[in-house]
């Protein structure tokens, strides 16, 4: 579909993009608040099995060698610093969400 035969309601698209972005921000920042509450009530947090993969890409990385020992060390570090990892994750995801929002604005701008 080309720019010539695409007609969009700019005001509607802008408002929809903004509302979705703000809703996402609210959900992500609540995650950090929940993590704070969890870290206050329990020093022994049981993380799901896939939590190591979950945190990869957010400041910790898998090792090609000694993977099992490496993963266990990361698991321990995440457990000990759960709150810090959660707030770090929240900011990174907020900016990723912002990037998606700006790409949507770029698309709207291209179709004005």
């Amino acid at each position: 579909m080309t720019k010539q035969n695409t007609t969009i309601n700019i005001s509607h698209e802008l408002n929809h993009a903004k509302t979705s972005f703000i809703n996402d921000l609210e959900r992500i920042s609540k995650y950090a608040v929940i993590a704070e509450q969890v870290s206050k009530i329990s020093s022994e947090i049981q993380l799901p099995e896939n939590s190591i993969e979950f945190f990869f890409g957010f400041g910790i990385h898998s090792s090609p060698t000694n993977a099992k020992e490496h993963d266990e060390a990361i698991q321990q570090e995440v457990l000990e610093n759960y709150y810090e990892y959660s707030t770090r994750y929240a900011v990174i995801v907020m900016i990723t969400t912002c990037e998606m929002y700006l790409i949507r604005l770029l698309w709207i701008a291209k179709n004005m």
Partner: protein
Amino acid sequence: MSGQQFYDLGAEARKEARYTSVPKLVEKISKEIGEEIYFDDLPIFNSIYNARNCLAHRRGEIGKEDIDENGDFKLLWKTLQLTVDGAPQEQIRGLYVEAGNQVGFRFIVSEKKLSAGEKLVLTAQDCQNIAFTLAGFSANMTKAIENAARKIIVPGSFASQ
């Protein structure tokens, strides 16, 4: 517009945005609408983006990549401050206000300043402040594009909600 149509139409924008930093995306949008997008929030937004890079690539350890020419790392965000007759109030809970006094809110910019070698650690309240700041940023971006759109007369492409 269906989700699939939106996805297809957005492919070009996504391709162009690949490997583009978030602040550069704002510049690209400015170029598309033919007007420079600038508002007071932009330096604040850029500081949050820099903090993201430090958290993602250096686990919050402030490196030489993160500091400015004065050797400082600054993370800025906006918060709301309660005022009574223009005077800022630190304590909100249990605040007593006399009849006839004016209660108000104003935006203030707060900062977290660190040096190389220190570690950036954020609280849940910090995350909420960052979310609040980014929400304000989106309102400004929307306004900038709407203003540009009003200058371009394309029948059917712009309608007030």
